[in-house]
Structure formats: structure tokens, C-alpha cells
């Protein structure tokens, strides 16, 4: 994170492509094939005492349907903050996030909660499974929140647990699972409501190399088999081979975007 001089124009930090993106109308109706998730001119400012500190600076990013995007960069470069803004976990100081044509700024807190419930799946570095619940109940929770019937909830949870290879551990408490297993449960939970996009914040950060590779492999498989969109934040550059696009961040800004050609 760094301080942004107040007298420097925004254009100073932006590429031509980013400036073009910013001219996109945020309230344009969503059409199939359009980017499903757009972060436009995002800036997030925190105060450290009285000094403003910019975690993300005038950053613009678009995610296309079915894309596997990896956001990489050193610690403290603003990757997690960017992901939080894209997922509606935090509000930008400036800028706009649009998911399937829905600008976040037009939603109140409850509206944002409903949007997260229905359209966004999260995978966290520390798994964040609810320890009061079993693995199966953790996966069922998002579906219960949208009001899916108990029978369908249970059936779908079983299906998701099987998809991540955890069917036999359904009745276990998170305490009884290894880190890699917990992260698999977290992935199943993120997929529960068929989200538009899954946002993963350092999903391998708390895992050993083998488990981390397995989790990224799982993401890739789900991405290919079910056309599930993923945005994964990681500081580990070894995962770049799995991504369709790699976004490099430094100092709160996107400095390079590498797109793989099919």
C-alpha cells in the first residue's frame, strides 16, 4: 500500500485500455457474452491515523464468463482489497463494480448481501469453515440462505462434496479435516448456489505445496467442466500456467495483464 499524491491526475496511472474501459457506461444493460464482472476505476483509501493510504488505485478490470483469472503480486500490493471490492465485501472509495449489469453502488447492504448470496462464491485463505457445523452443513448453509428445500439442499450438498472428492468426510467437523480437505469443503460451499463468479483469496496460502496444487487443479477442472468463472488471488507465480489470464499487481495498481491464447 502506498500514498497517492493528491495532485497527480488519474490518467497518470492508467493504460489506454483501462481508460477505454472506464468510459464504459456502468448502467448499460447486461447482454450474454459481455464481461460478467467489471471493476471500474476502483480506488480504496484507508486512513492510517490521519494519513490516507491507497490500497487500490484507480484500477479497472473485466472478467469474462467462464474465465479463469489469476491475480498475482507481492504481499501488500492490494490483491485482497481488489478481490474484496469485486466480491462486494467492501465498498470502494471511488469507482464502481458491476456484476451482470448490476452496479454495487445502487445496492444497500442487504441488497449486497443478497447479491453475494446468489451470485458470488468465496474461498478464503484460512478456509473460514464454520466450526459449529459439519462439512456437509457448511456446504448446505448457502443453499439454506437462499431458501432451497431441505431435500434438494441435502442432495446438492452430496453432489458437490462428491465433485470435490469429499463425499466420505461429509459428517466430519472441520476440526477433523486437514487443511487441504477443509479448503475442498470451502470450494464446495462456494459453488453451492451456482454463483456467477467464484472469488478465491490466496486459497493455497495456508496449504502445503501438494495440497495447494490439488486445489488449483480442482479450480481448473471445475472451470473447464462446468464453465465456472474463477478469479483467484495468489502470490504464487507457479500457478500462472493454469490461468486463462494473469493480472499482475503492484502498489495498488494493475501493471501487466498476460492473456493466454487458446
Amino acid at each position, binding site marked *: 500500500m502506498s500514498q497517492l499524491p493528491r495532485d497527480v491526475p488519474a490518467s497518470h496511472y492508467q493504460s489506454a485500455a483501462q481508460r477505454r474501459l472506464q468510459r464504459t457506461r456502468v448502467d448499460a444493460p447486461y447482454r450474454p457474452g459481455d464481461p460478467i464482472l467489471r471493476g471500474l476505476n476502483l480506488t480504496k483509501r484507508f486512513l492510517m491515523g490521519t494519513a490516507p493510504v491507497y490500497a487500490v488505485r484507480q484500477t479497472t478490470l473485466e472478467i469474462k464468463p467462464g474465465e479463469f483469472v489469476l491475480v498475482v503480486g507481492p504481499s501488500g500490493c492490494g490483491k485482497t482489497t481488489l478481490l474484496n471490492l469485486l*466480491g462486494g465485501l467492501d465498498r470502494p472509495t471511488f469507482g464502481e463494480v458491476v456484476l451482470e449489469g448490476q452496479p454495487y453502488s445502487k445496492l444497500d447492504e442487504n441488497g449486497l*448481501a443478497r447479491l453475494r448470496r446468489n451470485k458470488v462464491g468465496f474461498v478464503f485463505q484460512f478456509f473460514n469453515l464454520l*466450526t459449529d*457445523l459439519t462439512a456437509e452443513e457448511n456446504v448446505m448453509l448457502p443453499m*439454506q440462505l437462499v*431458501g432451497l428445500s*431441505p431435500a434438494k439442499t441435502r442432495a446438492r450438498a452430496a453432489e458437490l462434496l462428491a465433485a470435490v472428492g469429499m463425499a466420505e468426510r461429509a459428517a466430519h467437523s472441520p476440526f477433523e479435516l486437514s487443511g487441504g480437505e477443509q479448503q475442498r469443503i470451502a470450494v464446495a460451499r462456494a459453488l453451492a448456489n451456482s454463483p456467477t463468479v467464484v472469488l478465491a483469496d490466496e486459497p493455497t496460502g495456508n496449504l502445503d505445496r501438494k495440497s495447494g496444487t490439488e486445489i488449483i487443479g480442482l479450480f481448473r477442472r471445475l472451470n473447464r*467442466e462446468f464453465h465456472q468463472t474463477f478469479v483467484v488471488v495468489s502470490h504464487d507465480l507457479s500457478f500462472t500456467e493454469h490461468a486463462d489470464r494473469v493480472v499482475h499487481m503492484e502498489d495498488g495498481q494493475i501493471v501487466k495483464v498476460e492473456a493466454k491464447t487458446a
Partner: protein
Amino acid sequence: MSAMAAAGERAPGGRLVASWRRVAGLILPLSWRGVRRRKAGAALTALSLALGVATFLLFGGYFAATRQAVEGRIEPLALPADLVVAVGVDSPGGVPGGLPGGGPAGAPSIVQTLNRLPDVKTATGMVVGTAYTSVGRRRIIGLDEKVLGGLKLGAGAPPMTAGEVLLPQTLAAAGGIKVGSQITIATDMGGVWREQKFSVSGLYQGDDFFSGPLARREALAPLGLGPVDNAALVEAYPGSSRPGVASQIRSLYRDSADVLIPEFPASLAGSWLGQAFSPGNVAVFMVFTFSGLGVMNVLLLSFLQRKRQMGVFKALGMDDSDLKQLFFGEGLYVAAAGAALGMVLTAVLVALLGRLTSVRFIISGWLAAWALVLSFAVFALAAWLPAVLCQRASVSVLLQNKRIYLDPKTSCAECGRCGGF
């Protein structure tokens, strides 16, 4: 993964049914798990509330029993009046050594003034003083012949001469006095005792603490209590409120009037119990306040220890009402446990105190219902702060276990001097 499409399908039923299903099927079980996970803390919290409930029930039960006992001992004063007013007994021209207070006196002025009050039907002059009898201190009242003649008597006849007196039946029974007995009544005239012998002409019903000997007005002159009228019997119009009339009279004579209503002790007990700052109410209030603060502290700490979990709930899409229900659900379980425990504790204490002492308790269904209402109200208030804090904090703040401020959107969070939560 074909079932992914199933997420869009909702359970059947209306909005209310869906809401109830959500609370019963998801929120309350989550609350229950939260309570179960902190068994020791929840048990201590429930115990503190149980003490509050038991204190409330014991105080309430004791006062109810006391009130019933007081009311059970009181019979209406057998005077043809709604109020007895004693005014200015220490004033010049009045009678010293009687009732407290001072001020103007005089039969014409008192009776005439009272008769002008809108709710007063008639005011009749009389003399009131303090009489010392063999069974204790009572008020002696001097009445007009006409008023004495209108009394309902249990035995004998109204006093026909200045040497005759009527006594309350229970006072007579306590002293072994019968119709025709001779009694001596004394009054204290500033350290000098005056005594006079009376013959008991009859007995009347009435046993509250100001029921005493009734005589003809002129009979009290030798006792130093006449002939100046220092009091009046007041009859209110039907439909008028006696406390209302009493209030009018008190406002007329400020501190110098002593207004008595026939069922005075019962109403006194009732009003004392009803006063917001009576000792019992203050004790109950304090117990509930302290247990409420303790409960709030426990719920707040429990929330602060689970910031990350709350962040996950919010990230998964729980909205404000879900979070409120989650906290109130936890409060509900502990309140129910505390109330039940408090009832059991009360039952044990009532049985124990009943066996060891003569103290009686009357714990009615209403009292128990009030205890329940109070305990749930305490928990609703206690759950409010953590629920509000949780609602206001952003998901990322909760997930990162950062400090929370009551108003995170304004300078409150930027100032941060209070340290937040």
C-alpha cells in the same frame, strides 16, 4: 454438475412460511449451536438471569402476600363518608397534640370550603384527636348527633349524651369491653394528660388503624379537643374518585390537611408497592440492570470472539435481519434457560423460607408472566448492541478481525480514540 441450476429453485410456500422456515430451520439451529459451543459462559449467564428472576418473584410474591394480609385485616370504616379530613390541628384555635401539620382551622371555613369542591356532595364538621385507650393509640372522632344516628351498629345504640361513646367491635373485643362498660380515654395536652370516663353505648364495625372511639362533638371538649371543629367528614358524589377528591382537598390545604380514605391502609400498601422507587422495585430494577449488563457483556464478548465467523456469515449472504435473529436467537435460548432456572430456584426458596420462617409468598401466574417478559426484555436489549455492531461492520473488517466502531462510515472510525470494540 446439473444440479447447479437447482439453486434457483425455492421451497414452496408464501413469504411468511419461507421466513418462518428460515428462522426455524436455519437461524435458530445456528443460534443453538452457538450457545452449545459456549456451554460454561451460557450457563453462567443463565444463572445470573435466574437470580434476577428469583429476586423479582420473591419480592413480588412477598409484597403480594403482605398486601393480601393487610387487606384481609381491614374492614371499611363504618362512617357515612368517603373521606375524613383533619385540618390545622396545631394551629391557633385548633387543637394541639392531635394530627400533624398546621394552618388555618375553624368549622365554618373548612366545611364551607370543602362543600364548594365540585365532587363533594356534603362535608360535615367534626372533631378529631388522638385518644389513648387500654388497647393502644387511636383517633377519637367527635361527630354530629345526626351523623352518629346514621351509623350501622353491631350492638347497642348511638351516644345520646356527652358521656357516651361508640367503639369499634374489634377494639372492644381486644379490650374485653361490652356495651355499658365504663372506659377511660386520655389525651396528651403538651405533656399534661387529660382523662375522661365514658360509657360504651354501642359497637360499630370497622377495624382499620384509624377507627377509634366515636363520640358526640361536645363530649370531647373536656379532653381539650373542642369545641373548635378541626376536621370534616366528606361524602363524594357517586361516580367521583375518592383519591381524586382527596387530592383536591390536599391541594386546598397544602401540608396542613390529613385526608383519610376508609380503605386507607390497603390503598397505602398498594400505592407504596406501585411506586417506581419503592425499595422492592429498586432492588428488582438493580438486579435486572446488573444482570442485563452482565448478559450484554457476555453476548458482546461472544460476538467479538467470533468476528471472523460473523464475517463468514455476511460473506455467504446473511442480511441484517438474519444477523439480528441470530443474536436474538442466542439470547432467547439463554433467557428461556435463565427464566426456567429462576422459577425452579424461586420454588425451592419459597418452600425453604416457608418451612424455616413465617414469611409467606404469593406467586401468581401474572407475576411469573411478568418475570418471563422481563427476562426476555433484558435479553432483547442485551442482544441489541452486538447485533448492531455486527450489522454495521463491513465484511472485510469482520473477516480480518479488525476493530469495530459504532459508526464505521463517519469520523467515528477515523478518530478511533475510544478504541472501538
